[in-house]
């Protein structure tokens, strides 16, 4: 079903693992070209939210629509999920960049990049390879197409992860702590790549602990705690120190103001 509106709409989204409610009614909207940052303490449900947007985790209640395709709707009694086929089609357009890269270990870098376009988007191999080379160049790894993931540094692997997402011709990219598994000296390189994507107008939802990065690049920042978004706003609003005491306490803990 087609509904006009923002590229991502999340309303009252809930997710429980067994009896453990991890998302407790999350509302979130992302417009085309927007860069949305999600911050908050560990265990607050940030990854679960991101994975739910891609339907990698099945929500247990609430409404979710991506790029005008409704993926789930209804509350506890009447909760429904879109057919598997529709979900797969949407997924292809909102790829995730994972904290631990999750590159296909048995495939070369170029092969990593063409799997989705060939098998999911139905592109020809020739076309997929051309796109792959171009995306690889965009993340600064033009010469690494024939290398295997195990032969790359963490920073290079994450660049491939980003290129793999780009190869899907995405409507939006979801980043789950893309720099948390990297050695400190490799972090800024990845952040630069993401910044370039933002400059080129890519819509992105980014879970991160890099506060200055979130502050500089984010159009909107959401603060999550215990399965809820408890504060949202522009970086100025959220980092001004005038907001909720809880947010200020977190920001002070993670990046104490001088």
């Amino acid at each position, binding site marked *: 079903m087609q509904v006009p509106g923002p590229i991502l709409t999340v309303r009252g989204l809930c997710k429980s693992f067994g009896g453990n409610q991890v998302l407790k009614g999350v509302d979130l909207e992302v417009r085309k070209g927007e860069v949305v940052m999600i911050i908050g303490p560990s265990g607050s449900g940030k990854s679960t939210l991101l994975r739910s947007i891609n339907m990698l985790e099945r929500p247990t209640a609430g409404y979710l629509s991506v790029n005008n395709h409704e993926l789930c709707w209804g509350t506890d009694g009447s909760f429904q999920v879109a057919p598997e086929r529709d979900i*797969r089609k949407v997924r292809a357009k909102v790829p995730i960049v994972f904290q631990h890269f*999750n590159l296909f*270990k*048995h495939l070369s870098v170029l092969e990593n990049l063409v799997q989705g376009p060939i098998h999911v988007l139905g592109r020809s191999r020739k076309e997929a390879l051309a796109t792959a080379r171009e995306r690889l160049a965009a993340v600064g790894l033009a010469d690494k197409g024939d*290398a295997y993931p195990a032969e790359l540094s963490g920073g290079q692997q994450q660049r491939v992860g980003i290129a793999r997402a780009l190869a899907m011709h995405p409507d939006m990219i979801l980043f789950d702590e893309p720099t948390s598994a990297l050695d400190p000296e490799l972090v800024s390189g990845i952040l630069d790549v993401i910044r370039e994507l933002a400059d080129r107008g890519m819509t992105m939802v980014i879970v991160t602990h890099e506060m200055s990065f979130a502050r500089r690049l984010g159009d909107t920042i959401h603060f999550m705690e215990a399965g809820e978004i408890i504060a949202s706003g522009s970086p100025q609003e959220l980092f001004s120190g005038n907001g909720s005491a809880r947010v200020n306490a977190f920001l002070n803990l993670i990046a104490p103001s001088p």
Partner: protein
Amino acid sequence: MYDYLFVWAPRHLPSLLQGAGVTLQLAIISMCCALVVGLLVALGHLHAPKWVRWLLKAYVEIWRDIPLIVQLLVIYFTLPQIGISLPGFWAGIIGLSLNLGAYISEVFRSAIASVDKGQREAAVSIGMSTVQSYCYIILPQALLVAVPTIGGYFISLLKDCALVSFIAVNELLRNGQIIISSTFQSMEVYMMVAFIYFVMSFTASIIVRQVERLLTPAYLVRAHKRT
């Protein structure tokens, strides 16, 4: 000695080699069937409804707890009772396939489990179906883990095929015994049988190693060369 090598052996060798051919056919067909059975059972363990999983578990357990020779005899003598009359060769194939399938299903199961779950997530998150994620991402990695063990099983299978002589299949061992029954030269015949088994197993182990090498991804070969 001269008689043995130049008169006796040429007379009986064709029959033994023909038996070896049957042994090879048994082994290769059974291996292919066992791979299919093993893969389906392993996937069933992971994805089928609970009652199917329970049945599969029972199959694996039962087949691993009964000696292969007993399984072969049961199949060969029971099937005709329920109206299915199979030549010994095909009864042997069924017995060997189901037996090896039970073992191979466990190999596949642990090989699939050894593939990091992030691999499946990465595949599914870009829109691959479950079947696609298995074909392109999970199974190629699992196979690499499973190949050495499965190769070992193949060589065991080649030797276990001798048991099929008990259900009247004219394979290598039984052809040997037939020769003995008319010549009474047990030692000479069994020596030749042993030698032919050795040649087959040895060749098979070389082929298995070759296959392993072919399947090893380029980066591991490069890493190996560097050290």
